[in-house]
């Protein structure tokens, strides 16, 4: 054991350890029911470290901590419960296989998982069919994303800044941004769905993105 082991890590914070639903009854995996408590304080990166060792208790703790986030992303993009569950499972499998690739300098474990889930969900959408999102679905999602803090607690300050920025956008720009950024729709697909010229769709996506970025930078400087 004289050699140093290859690990991972950097300057990251030990964060995001919330149990999103502590009252949810744990599933019956023998000997594990207490683990939600015992691992509750372990930082996300530590759980990811342990996940690679194949320890079932750590795997349960890891999945339990992030499953509602991962499943929420998949469900929002896909709108199909079965497909969303499949994508959520694939997300954990991919995270487990590629845990060594995690780099805290690029974001949190939760953000990493969210991106994996989103990419897989977009792939699933594109493989299935090109679908213009139903207007009522888009409005419902946009409403949920811009809910005020009193109605929904967000994971961190940055998310709250993004929420405020999106809420300030003109409706048509916010719609275009969500179509592109969440549903992965191209400018051409946005144009088709909104019955607008391609150039207008591109402008809305570009302007919406830049405005949110500008608002974020303004708040970051404060």
């Amino acid at each position: 054991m004289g050699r140093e082991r290859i690990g991972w890590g950097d300057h990251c914070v030990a964060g995001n350890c919330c149990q999103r639903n502590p009252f949810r009854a744990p599933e019956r995996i023998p000997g594990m029911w207490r683990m939600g408590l015992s691992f509750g304080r372990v930082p996300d990166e530590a759980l990811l470290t342990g996940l690679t060792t194949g320890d079932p208790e750590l795997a349960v703790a890891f999945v339990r901590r992030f499953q509602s986030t991962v499943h929420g992303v998949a469900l929002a993009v896909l709108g199909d419960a079965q497909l969303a569950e499949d994508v959520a499972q694939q997300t954990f499998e991919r995270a487990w296989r590629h845990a060594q690739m995690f780099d805290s300098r690029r974001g949190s474990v939760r953000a990493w998982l969210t991106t994996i889930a989103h990419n897989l969900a977009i792939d699933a959408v594109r493989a299935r069919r090109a679908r213009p999102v139903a207007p009522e679905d888009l409005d419902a999602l946009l409403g949920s994303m811009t809910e005020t803090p009193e109605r929904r607690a967000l994971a961190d300050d940055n998310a709250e800044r993004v929420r405020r920025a999106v809420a300030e956008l003109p409706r048509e720009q916010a719609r275009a941004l969500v179509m592109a950024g969440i549903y992965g729709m191209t400018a051409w697909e946005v144009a088709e769905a909104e019955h607008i010229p391609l150039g207008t769709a591109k402008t809305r996506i570009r302007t919406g993105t830049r405005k949110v970025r500008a608002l974020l930078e303004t708040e970051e400087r404060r």
Partner: protein
Amino acid sequence: MECERLREQGAELALGILPARERAEAVAHLDRCPDCREHVERLTAVGDGLLALLPDAEPPVGFESRVVRALGAAPAAKPRRHRLRLAAAAVAATVACGFGGWAVGTVVEGAPSSVSRRTDGDLREAALVSGGHEVGRIFTHGGDRGWVYMSVELPGTDRGPVRCLLVHADGSTVPMGSFPLKDGYGYWGAPAPVDPTTVTGARLVGPDGSVLATARFPTS
């Protein structure tokens, strides 16, 4: 491609919706234009931020068990062979990280308690102490699937890399790994066999060999 055109397409590129051919041209431009690269990276944060706004949704009952089984981590009644699954990660050149990163702000958890404690199972936790003050935490998980994780904050210390050593009951030390501190903060973890019957503590050692912090695991 000119910078002006890249700036027009930057949002679509950052959101991952630029068609393949245009995307290839844009990426080629970014390879040689740091200003445009920075511009797109800033825009990428918008797409990452949008994902953080999506509402959570509890998966169906049984999901947790199915995932754990799929990971091959189903509980077993007898000791299992050492089987670190690290090799697979080496081939992962393109993990599902979108272009430009997925940076989203992280959250600082409340400060942990300063009391070392023994937790359920083989998980052990102890405070890293320097000059009588807690400066971090170390976690170890025992057994042949063991691992070590530590996070440390030493304000004013930006010298690295620092090394983690486990201390055994006979006084011997075993180097586990090293990691950098940035603005005095860093963390590190790695799979490592940890025998809870012999490992009694840990040391964090600076590049010059000086002991920066120590930890002592509680005895059972």
